[in-house]
């Protein structure tokens, strides 16, 4: 994409939307908003709007994909046609297939899939509005939805990205920064043991820059973790009912 001459992503250390370099966008999570799904979550992350739903483990189809030692977790990432500026052609494409795959793999290492031999767990992530960082937003929402369904997990999955804009490393890029910036590093972790379950890199970073980006993304993910916990606890408080 061509960048307008003289357009600056950074001014006096502040970004286009006034954030500092190590500041993430506002994240808001609502739990259990879909009645038919076993578990669900709606997440707003800056201008990203994501809906995630999950079904209970059930018989896996097609049969040849079954695994008698563990469940197969399949995550489907889908962008709504109206989620981006130019209409997105509906249906799976290379990008959404890739994201579906990495989300499935990241979630598989959090969910205790060994409890459900021969079964399949379907997770779907719908992007209603995209503003960069949708894979992190989708993963964050999906893990909350799985927790809401009561499917056993070793830990929640928290995620955040970092990148390079105008030569500086910044956390949680938004659309303009992602489009005109130099690099993007999405990261997902299991916060309790600080294990990494997703790490990608777009563009170029030097070794030192990468370390800085990793640190920023990690700290961002820990902030997201606190928001996930708060959302789950408040949703449980409301189902706990009266009499307390």
């Amino acid at each position, binding site marked *: 994409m061509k960048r307008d001459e003289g357009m600056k992503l950074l001014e006096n250390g502040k970004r286009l939307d006034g954030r500092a370099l190590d500041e993430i966008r506002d994240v808001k999570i609502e739990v259990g908003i879909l009645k038919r799904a076993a578990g669900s979550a709606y997440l707003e992350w800056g201008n990203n709007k994501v809906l995630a739903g999950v079904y209970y483990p059930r018989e896996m189809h097609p049969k040849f994909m079954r695994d008698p030692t563990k469940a197969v977790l399949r995550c489907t990432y889908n962008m709504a046609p109206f989620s981006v500026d130019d209409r997105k052609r509906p249906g799976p494409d290379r990008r959404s297939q890739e994201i579906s795959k990495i989300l499935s793999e990241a979630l598989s290492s959090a969910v205790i899939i060994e409890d459900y031999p021969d079964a399949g767990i379907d997770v779907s992530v719908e992007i209603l509005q995209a503003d960069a960082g949708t894979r992190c937003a989708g993963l964050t929402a999906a893990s909350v939805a799985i*927790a*809401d369904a*009561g499917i*056993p*997990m*070793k830990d*929640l999955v928290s995620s955040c990205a970092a990148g390079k804009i105008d030569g500086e490393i910044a956390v949680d890029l938004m659309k303009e920064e992602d489009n005109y910036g130099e690099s993007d590093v999405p990261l997902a972790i299991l916060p309790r043991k600080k294990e990494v379950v997703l790490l990608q890199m777009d563009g170029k970073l030097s070794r030192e820059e990468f370390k800085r980006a990793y640190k920023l993304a990690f700290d961002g993910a820990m902030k997201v973790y606190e928001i996930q916990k708060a959302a789950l606890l408040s949703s449980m408080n409301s189902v706990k009912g009266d009499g*307390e």
Partner: protein
Amino acid sequence: MIDVKDRELVFPGRILGDGGGRGGDSFIDGGHIVSSVDGMVRVKGNRVDVIPFRGGYAPKESDVVIGIILQVLRGSWLVDINSFSKAYMRGEEATRDALNSDLSRYFRVGDRISAKISEVNELKSSQLIRPWRLEDGIIIEVNPKKIPRVVGKKRSMLNMIREKTGCRIVVGQNGRIWLKGNNLETAIKAIRKIEREAQSRGLTNRVGEFLSNELQSR
């Protein structure tokens, strides 16, 4: 040591303590007891139990479940028990010579039964014994994790609903409840109330009052 208070809310990955007894829905990792689900903890002395709020049914030995016959096979039946895995019932449960007799004479596709799980294998597929045909009546589905509250301590809650409504009720651990008889709607309302308010104190008394009020206003 247990790190949580009694009745505290927990989420997957929450460390509950390091050492001591524990129930299901938790696991041990690096010397810590960790919760694996959303739920409420009950602490009794040096033991911690997680009571999950939601979740599907996983077959467990000696559970009584309500099943629906899916298929009549050679010498056995395939039964749906509201779970991710299959349940089989041997033809010998109904007849001596299962291989040479027409099993659909006993149970056909679509028949509802209550049965006991005698065995769960490593693939979580289960074996049913002692089928009991559930004729007429209706089956409702509730959250399987709330079944212990519907039954109550020493079946107190269930017996109270049975007594007050005069309804015949069979509760399956898999979240299906079969009802037949008088005051069906009132009984169902009471069960839904229990499901909604499962984690609150003094529930049996409140459901008792609710049933009395409902039945009086008829």
